[in-house]
């Protein structure tokens, strides 16, 4: 057997103890008509062959590009100490901590994760994590409906499209409905949530709103007027959900500061590599008064019978194994190892380090914006941004592909970020982090200038190699 210990002798002894001749007898209960058809799988590989095949597959991915792609998933410096902790077998091969006496390791690390995110968001109740930012955002919307007993939610188009689509699926076909709040199209607030439109949507007395969702920074990288959105939301008796990016919380006002009732977000930037989409970390936090509405696990501190400090899964009666069909959510897991990665990452950076990561990204982004403007691609929106923004690029999809061939991943064309939105056609959404080098910025600007024809006559063949 590939990973198991049984020898033919072991099997004989077990069969003898059971008084049967062959293991086939244990499967006789399966009706003959549906007994196994062969499984069409390639033959098993030895470890050597397996590793060779995996190297080949991994080698077919292009991860050597100068990348300016963000849109909710960001490349950050990952301190190696994070992975060292994740590789401790007692952490990663453990199950859910149902027996707290022998799971204090897992329980305490998750309690610490909850505490760290409580500090970052300013909200005291943080779940042990949801699947990812998109599902956390969808569940936050459902929370507002349960808590207010209303059935309508407003979602700004500044919230990431992936989260909005997931919310749409979670809401689909039930009695719940949602409307999107448009973004301002022109002027100094272009690209941010249209407050006048929000006000009108909130004002319909026949359709009271349970919750309003807005993102900070928003999908276009812009800073939103969160305090004002919060005020309008509460004036209508609704709850305010802030969709947040965790690194930015080191330098931007946190959800509690502008009155958010619930915060949701993608925790991938906290020590988790991009991995083509997961596993990620769904951050979900709320005010104390909403604790009974939050789905997912909660770890609490308590004491044991001898007064020692101890940690335990608590308020379990909310969860599916007890509430069953009345549970707020069917979630049965958390992204425990990802939450551990996030906690180690935040602890490894410290408050100063986390601020530096955010500030360096902002600084590089400003350099990027200047370089791209000079290359002929100015920012699409005038508002403030942290480390991500959209630039005007005619025929952006084609330019993006040509830049790809030069070894540059020029963010994402807006047309691909949100297909079907005609106002987002001619632009690229780009970002910078502390990993973005001046050389990469120079390469991008140089190549873009070339593509846009700002310096006609420079041969396209003078490509990436020289600069890199």
């Amino acid at each position, binding site marked *: 057997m590939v990973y198991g210990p049984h020898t033919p002798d072991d099997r004989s002894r077990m069969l003898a103890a059971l008084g049967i001749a062959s293991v086939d007898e244990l499967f006789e209960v399966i009706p003959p008509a549906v007994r196994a058809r062969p499984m069409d799988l390639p033959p098993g590989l030895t470890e050597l062959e397996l590793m060779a095949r995996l190297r080949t597959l991994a080698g077919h991915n292009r991860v050597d590009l100068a990348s300016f792609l963000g849109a909710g998933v960001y490349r950050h410096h990952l301190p190696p100490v994070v992975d060292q902790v994740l590789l401790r077998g007692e952490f990663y091969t453990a199950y859910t901590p149902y027996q707290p006496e022998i799971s204090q390791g897992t329980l305490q690390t998750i309690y610490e994760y909850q505490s760290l995110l409580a500090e970052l968001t300013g909200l005291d109740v943080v779940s042990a994590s949801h699947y990812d930012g998109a599902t956390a955002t969808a569940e936050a919307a459902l929370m507002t409906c349960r808590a207010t007993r209303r059935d309508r939610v407003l979602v700004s188009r500044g919230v990431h499209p992936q989260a909005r689509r997931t919310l749409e699926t979670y809401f689909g076909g039930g009695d719940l409905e949602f409307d999107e709040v448009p973004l301002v199209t022109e002027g100094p607030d272009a690209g941010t949530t249209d407050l006048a439109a929000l006000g009108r949507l909130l004002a319909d007395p026949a359709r009271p709103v349970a919750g309003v969702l807005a993102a900070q920074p928003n999908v276009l990288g812009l800073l939103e007027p969160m305090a004002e959105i919060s005020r309008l939301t509460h004036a209508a008796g609704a709850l305010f959900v802030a969709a947040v990016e965790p690194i930015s919380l080191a330098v931007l006002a946190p959800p509690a500061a502008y009155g958010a009732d619930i915060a949701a977000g993608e925790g991938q930037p906290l020590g988790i590599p991009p991995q083509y989409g997961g596993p990620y970390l769904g951050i979900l936090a709320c005010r104390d008064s909403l604790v*009974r509405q939050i789905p997912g696990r909660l770890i609490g501190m308590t004491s044991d019978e001898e007064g020692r400090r101890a940690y335990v899964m608590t*308020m*379990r*009666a909310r969860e599916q194994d*007890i*509430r069953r069909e*009345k549970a707020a959510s069917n979630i049965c897991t958390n992204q425990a190892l990802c939450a551990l990665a996030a906690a180690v990452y935040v602890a490894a950076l410290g408050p100063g380090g986390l601020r530096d990561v955010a500030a360096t990204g902002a600084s590089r982004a400003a350099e990027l914006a200047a370089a791209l403007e000079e290359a002929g691609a100015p920012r699409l929106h005038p508002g403030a941004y942290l480390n991500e923004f959209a630039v005007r690029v005619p025929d952006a999809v084609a330019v993006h592909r040509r830049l790809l061939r030069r070894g540059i991943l020029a963010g994402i064309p807006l047309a691909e970020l949100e297909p079907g939105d005609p106002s987002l056609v001619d632009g690229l959404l780009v970002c910078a982090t502390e990993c973005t080098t001046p050389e990469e910025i120079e390469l991008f600007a140089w190549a873009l200038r070339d593509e846009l024809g700002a310096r006609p006559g420079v041969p396209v063949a003078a490509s990436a190699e020289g600069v890199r």
Partner: protein
Amino acid sequence: MIPSDLRYTKEHEWIRVAGDEATVGITQHAADQLGDIVFVELPEPGHRLEQFATFGVVESVKAVSDLFAPVSGEVLEGNAGLNAMPEVVNSDPYGAGWMLRMRLSDPGEVEQLLDAAAYEALTAEG
């Protein structure tokens, strides 16, 4: 052991009637089955109750149970003391562990409930 002046439901609620008002709670048997009670969710004053329909939830560490109204009527008051000390439902379910006071809309419904002997027999069956 089981108070003889109360009436009971099959779902282990008790009711103490005084004129057209009443007090409602859960029995010791129910509290014992649930274990350490950690939270009780009760309706607001003014909420309309319907006989045998659910009106709230009682949670313990390991279980959760719906609460069923013994009779129809209107909630006058929920026991706010249970917010801070839900454990009093375990220690004094017929006294300080009361859950809500209500006004009855149809006192005749009380006849449909079990008396102490019948409830005792029900719980003896296990």
